[in-house]
């Protein structure tokens, strides 16, 4: 047994961005924190990945928009090497036949539809305002529905929420109530006239979900994404210099500077439970790292079913965890290019290839029946345009999110699905950027199965559980495990599976750190009083 002096107060499983944020805050508060990461480097799914020699891309998440400004400021990320001023990108939609429009430029939209040139910016501003009201909870623990058991903090945050709603004004509040559970296709029809602009809104609403534009709850996903474009995020899409790994590198530096210890290449096999409470973790090598508090940056399903194990949990809770919707639907495609076709070179930034709402819906229809989309919808970034260090001189890399490549495949093997989503995405891209195919010198495709195997995300679901109304706020990950605490005392969730959810925001880690500190201080009071 190790001497208690050297034993950490908190062990964090996984050095993803949320694990690092939690580590930094806990260490700043004076706790002894050890972060254990299975991979040889920190970052989790927020990494820069050299997929062929000389060509680097952001491994999973490739656009930074949700990183909470409070966290960036508190942890001094700029001081630790993160440059958030650079690399702001606009969204351009590529259409068949060579035309395109810039979603941030009314004049450009006017070429498609004069009405939408007015309507689209107004709709986005309005939706972003509503999303901002919903995001009042981002850095707080969402109140539970039973008011009788709600503490003053819960009541305060409920009050803040009511105030944020009130401030929206009567019209927007009513509109928010109307659209909250709706599907994004109907919303697009309400607000917009032209097909390409409606398709863009639909695409923003389904990104990251295994749902189509006509599925309920897709407006909520849209609002969720837009929340990060207001005061609770970066105000737009960023391509971080050096790739997403630069964000987690800065976080790791901040955590280390605050006193946290980070061990890479240390895979946790399971959480050590003694007398029905957390006692530490056991590594795959058999080594024990003992600590009274264990925070898991892994997804809730993995945390419950593998790290804690069903034998330490109750039946209904295990069933809830088994039934979390964790269906990854997006593949990540990385291209090494020896040059850019004209359409891509002039577009820059963030490209969306989803010309019609029905195209996206049909792409989803395939996924619904366990097939890779015949014509996937694509989000493309070319990070080497702004950061030439990511590719050899004169060459480029493209990072593509392709929907849908379902986790639950019915007709094809994972290998076939990988080949299909790669080939079909290139075919779609070739239509809007002719000549691209000839420029590709290497390609890497990560299906949801690959994301699961390489990054430990169950189902390949990169939000650690789909962002739908039944899996957010006090229902994230489940009504029985709110407030970052798993049922086993001393085990916490600090990853995207906890409120507020996915994207590189750091908010779940921030909130988890606050809840862990509450428990640590309460215990110290008890010990002190005894």
């Amino acid at each position, binding site marked *: 047994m190790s001497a208690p002096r050297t034993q950490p107060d908190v062990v964090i499983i996984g050095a993803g961005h949320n694990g690092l944020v939690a580590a930094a805050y806990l260490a700043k508060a004076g706790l002894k924190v050890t972060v254990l990461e299975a991979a040889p480097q920190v970052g989790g799914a927020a990494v820069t990945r050299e997929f062929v020699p000389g060509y680097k891309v952001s491994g999973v998440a490739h656009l930074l928009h949700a990183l909470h400004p409070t966290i960036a400021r508190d942890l001094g990320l700029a001081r630790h090497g993160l440059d958030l001023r650079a690399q702001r990108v606009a969204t351009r939609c590529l259409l068949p036949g060579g035309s395109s429009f810039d979603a941030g430029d009314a004049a450009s939209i006017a070429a498609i539809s004069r009405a939408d040139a007015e309507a689209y910016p107004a709709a986005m501003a309005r939706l972003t305002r509503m999303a901002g009201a919903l995001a009042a909870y981002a850095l707080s623990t969402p109140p539970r529905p039973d008011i009788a058991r709600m503490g003053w903090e819960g009541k305060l945050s409920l009050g803040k929420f009511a105030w944020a709603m009130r401030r929206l004004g009567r019209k927007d509040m009513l509109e928010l109530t109307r659209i909250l559970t709706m599907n994004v296709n109907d919303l697009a029809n309400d607000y917009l006239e032209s097909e390409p602009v409606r398709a863009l809104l639909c695409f923003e609403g389904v990104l990251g979900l295994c749902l189509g534009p006509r599925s309920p709850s897709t407006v909520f996903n849209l609002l969720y994404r837009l929340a990060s474009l207001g005061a609770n995020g970066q105000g737009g899409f960023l391509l971080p210099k050096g790739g997403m790994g630069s964000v987690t590198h800065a976080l790791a530096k901040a955590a280390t500077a605050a006193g946290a210890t980070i061990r890479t290449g240390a895979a946790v096999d399971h959480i050590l439970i003694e007398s029905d409470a957390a006692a530490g973790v056991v590594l795959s090598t058999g080594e024990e790292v003992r600590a009274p508090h264990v925070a898991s940056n892994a997804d809730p399903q993995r945390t419950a079913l593998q790290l804690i194990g*069903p*034998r*330490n949990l109750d*039946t209904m809770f*295990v069933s809830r965890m*088994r039934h979390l919707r964790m269906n990854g639907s997006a593949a990540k495609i990385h291209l090494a290019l020896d040059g850019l076709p004209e359409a891509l070179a002039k577009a820059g930034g963030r490209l969306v290839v989803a010309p019609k709402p029905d195209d996206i819906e049909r792409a989803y229809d395939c996924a619904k029946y366990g097939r890779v989309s015949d014509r996937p919808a694509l989000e493309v970034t070319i990070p080497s345009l702004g950061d030439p260090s990511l590719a050899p001189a004169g060459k480029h890399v493209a990072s593509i999110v392709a929907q849908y490549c379902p986790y639950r495949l019915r007709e094809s093997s994972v290998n076939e699905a990988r080949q299909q989503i790669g080939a079909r995405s290139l075919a779609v891209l070739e239509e809007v950027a002719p000549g691209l195919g000839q420029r590709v010198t290497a390609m890497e495709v990560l299906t949801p199965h690959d994301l699961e195997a390489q990054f430990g995300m169950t189902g390949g679901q990169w939000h650690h559980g789909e962002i739908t109304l039944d899996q957010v706020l006090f229902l994230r990950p489940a009504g029985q495990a709110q407030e970052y605490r798993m049922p086993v005392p001393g085990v916490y969730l600090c990853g995207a599976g906890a409120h507020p959810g996915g994207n590189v925001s750091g908010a779940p880690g921030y909130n988890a750190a606050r809840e862990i500190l509450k428990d640590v201080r309460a215990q110290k009071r008890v010990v002190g009083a005894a």
Partner: protein
Amino acid sequence: MTAYVEHVKPFLRRTPFHERIEALMHGNHWMRWTGHYSPAAFESVQSEYFTIRNGASVYDISPLIKYRIAGRQAAEYVNHLITRDLSKIKPMQAFYTAWCQDDGMLVEEGTIFRFGENDFLLNAAKDQLHWLEQAAYGFEVQIEEASNDLAGLSLQGPQSRDVLRAFGINGIEHLPRFGIIELELNGRWLRIDRAGFTGDLGYELWVRPADALWLWDRLFEVGRDHKIAPIGAQALEIARIEAGFILIDLDYSSALHALRPSNRMSPYELGIGWTVNLNKPGYFVGKRALKREKEQGLSRHVLTGIEIEGRKPAPGSFLYADRAGKRELGLTTSACWSPTLKKNIAYARLPAAYAKPGTEMWIEIWYHKEHKIERSMVRCWAANRMFYDPPRKSA
């Protein structure tokens, strides 16, 4: 032939003993038990009751729902499912236990039989395969319903052992309470366990359904000199209440079937907290909640025995702290006049402070008298729920 309207055509199943039971039945006094015909009474509830206490009573328990649990990790699974410590029983032993939901509310209570290290049979009153399978996630175990694989008779009463001796079961006197034996008799497989629902000396006999009528005929043949007689559920009910056993849907609702969450009850609230072993190794379903309930005193009430002044049975009666009926304490569930004890007994949900034996309370009983309903407010006293506990039960 009777012409039936299709939707009112009787549809209940017949147990393997039906033919014999029907032949002895007076007045078509059947009731329904897990979709089977089951006798409520034959001719006289009173004489059937006295058969339980003085002779050898025979009751068809084939309708019980039975689950076979086997597999490499069956023992670990059962220990995770139930509240008692499974290591307390060895192969060929049984025990009574509770099993709960996540928040410590009772799913059911019943007897689990252990035949081998990893070979079990669970007897239950309600269908719950889905629950058992949900709880089995992460265990290498097979669970299947075996309700139709066995035909059973409960042979209860002071003369039951003599009947079995006459039946040719050598060494039956050595079978301890909750022990199990399996043997061959006249080339037929027979399983006997020493358990029952009467709180008396008694056994349960299990055969293959095809041998059911053989078992019935042989028992009644050899039991003639030992006051053997069939009984129905009404006589058993009196013995059950005297013995202190709780009955599902009367004393409690299964957490899986309760209409409202607040209708569910914990083992502590039902007075079977002794079946909860918080110190057994490992976790079991509901442990965290049960521990909290016990440590923080969260039980809302406890199901206690009461003895009541007078002779009027008091089911569903309110109890009060005072004669005026200003302070309500709780409600009775099971209640009857005990013919053996000559006492008016009942179970009542009471605050823990009133559950101490001897505590005096008042009870309001409404009863029929000469075409009127009358009310009486009489004294009652908390008592050990096991009103009747003869030494022969476990001797």
